[in-house]
């Protein structure tokens, strides 16, 4: 157990360090950043705000991590968010109960994921292209459901999901924490995680060794659809309406970025959901930090781009081989040292 904790610590160290550095930098520019207040049984403060605003990207990042681990990518999550938000608003205004609305909405998300999964696993289409279809058409479908308008609703149950609180934390935070923990436990306490990694490294080899790659691939995209549905419900509940044009717009890129910042390679294989969630928090901290510290928000995108490039350089095969090359004399020395023992 101690060794697993140690591996986790080593794996998550860069992300935690980056997050701490960013938070400290923001707190220098904006004193009182770490202040937390308890009001009406709910915590308030900038840190809570980061957790809360980061909820959609964090949720999307959970599904995206698993999809990217299978060497895929899901471009449609933003559009699926818009569809699910529209479905939720349409159901609740049509008079269905809250439970029924959530059921239908989540079912829609699962269906969208199933569509992507079938295209990738059965028709064997490149993931970028397969999910592009739903990305292009999805926003149109969402507009079809809302008939081009912003569908507003007043159901207190649905609104609670966006702005209510549970145990002092805002509801969206509770949802992504619980969901992230559940998915992480499911893939890590069973062989599923390892099978997904095997599939991502070499699909053919894992198929030949008896892994049912088709089912696993479809399941990954279905999970991503589920995450998008939850994120869509939160986004719609937050503004008390479904905006087919802007809900989840470009969030697929933020989610992919969160996964990449989390250190999961786009080439598939090893993944860490915790690291991706930290990546989502890093992105949100940058967004919130830029706003709080009084920088013009125009610089937001440039700073994001600079961070991606930095991470790309660190992760690139060339840089890694250079790193191995530089650290080789030491490794060789310790090896000879062991031999003389």
């Amino acid at each position, binding site marked *: 157990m101690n060794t697993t904790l140690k591996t986790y610590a080593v794996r998550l160290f860069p992300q935690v360090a980056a997050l701490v550095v960013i938070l400290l930098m923001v707190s220098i520019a904006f004193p009182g950043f770490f202040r937390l207040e308890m009001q009406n049984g709910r915590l308030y403060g900038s840190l809570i705000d980061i957790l809360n605003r980061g909820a959609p990207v964090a949720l999307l990042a959970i599904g995206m991590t698993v999809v990217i681990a299978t060497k895929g990518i899901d471009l449609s999550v933003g559009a699926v968010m818009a569809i699910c938000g529209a479905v939720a608003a349409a159901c609740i205004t049509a008079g269905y109960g809250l439970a029924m609305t959530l059921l239908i909405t989540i079912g829609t998300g699962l269906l969208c994921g199933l569509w992507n999964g079938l295209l990738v696993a059965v028709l064997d289409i*490149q993931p970028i292209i397969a999910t592009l279809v739903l990305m292009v058409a999805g926003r149109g479908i969402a507009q079809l459901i809302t008939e081009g308008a912003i569908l507003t609703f007043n159901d207190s149950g649905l609104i609670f999901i966006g702005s209510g609180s549970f145990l002092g934390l805002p509801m969206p935070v509770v949802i992504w924490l619980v969901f992230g923990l559940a998915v992480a436990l499911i893939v890590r306490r069973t062989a599923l995680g390892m099978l997904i990694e095997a599939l991502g490294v070499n699909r053919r080899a894992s198929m030949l060794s008896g892994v049912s790659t088709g089912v696993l691939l479809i399941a990954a995209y279905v999970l991503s659809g589920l995450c998008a549905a939850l994120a869509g419900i939160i986004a719609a509940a937050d503004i008390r309406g479904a905006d087919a044009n802007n809900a989840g717009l470009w969030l697929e890129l933020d989610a992919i970025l969160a996964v990449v910042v989390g250190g999961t390679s786009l080439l598939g294989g090893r993944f860490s959901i915790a690291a991706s969630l930290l990546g989502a928090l890093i992105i949100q901290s940058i967004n919130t930090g830029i706003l709080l510290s009084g920088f013009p928000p125009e610089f937001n*995108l*440039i700073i994001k781009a600079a961070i*991606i490039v930095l991470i790309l350089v660190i992760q690139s095969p060339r840089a890694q081989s250079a790193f191995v090359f530089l650290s080789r004399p030491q490794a060789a020395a310790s090896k000879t040292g062991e031999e003389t023992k």
Partner: protein
Amino acid sequence: MNPRYLPLTATIAIFLIAYAVCIAQYPNMLSTRVIGNLLTDNAFLGIAAVGMTFVILSGGIDLSIGAVIAFTGVLLAVLLQSTAIHPLAAFVLALAVTTAFGALMGAIIHHLEMPPFIVTLAGMFLARGMAFVLSIDSIPIKHPFYATLKSVYYKLPGGGRITLIGGLMLLVFAAGILIAHRTRFGANIYALGGGTATARLMGVPIGRTTVMIYALSGFLAGLSGIVFSLYTSAGYSLATVGVELDAIAAVVIGGTLLTGGSGFVAGTLVGILIQGLIQTYITFDGSLSSWWTKILIGLLLFAFILLQKGLILATDRRRRHA
């Protein structure tokens, strides 16, 4: 028939059938005015899509073009508003910046061995961010030279006009076809799309070709930005969001294989025209909502991906039997 030409033939057939259906319903659509407007309205998208075709032929993808178009527009507007330089000089400057930007992305893709998807995503953020930094407002362009350029057109029989930007798009497509099929650079692109390892064995300079492909895409996105600023007479940092998706869709509908190595620049032109036709039809109809454009384009995308998949399966089977 060579199966290589099948997707292109299918695209052209779909365009002709769709146009015939449109004419059957609205006879007014058969006029040179409609065709002239089709070219003018889609000029910026078409020019950018030529660059995207080359990128996709080489097996890559360029997500930055929408942001680069917006950046070029804002850059031109700011230059013309706050300095006294002639628009032509501003055009040259903008093209130099976007070409260098594309070349830089190509260099990063090649030298850091990173997936084009994520590199051009960073490029998209950077270009959009630079546009925001230049100005967050929509800046009108009131230079008299713009008015002169906009008044240039070639009158077709029947009252239609091929405007300067519509004509420019056709020229860019002609140049693209020449580059793809009549130059060594074009052959190198096709080779690269067929597989990096085989291309290297064939003696294709991988690094130089990759950098040149993305530089060309950057140049065409810059040119597209100039055309867009002529079209709208303004520069706005939030303009042309998502144009890269329209361009990718046009390339795929045009019959280019997304895995690279197979396809035609001319197909992309037809892909653009099909998208434009759907929009024109919706305008003519008046009761259909604009979101049907997106759904129809999504369906067309899906149909063409299936067609390509079937073709690959068929050729594989034939090869195995031979």
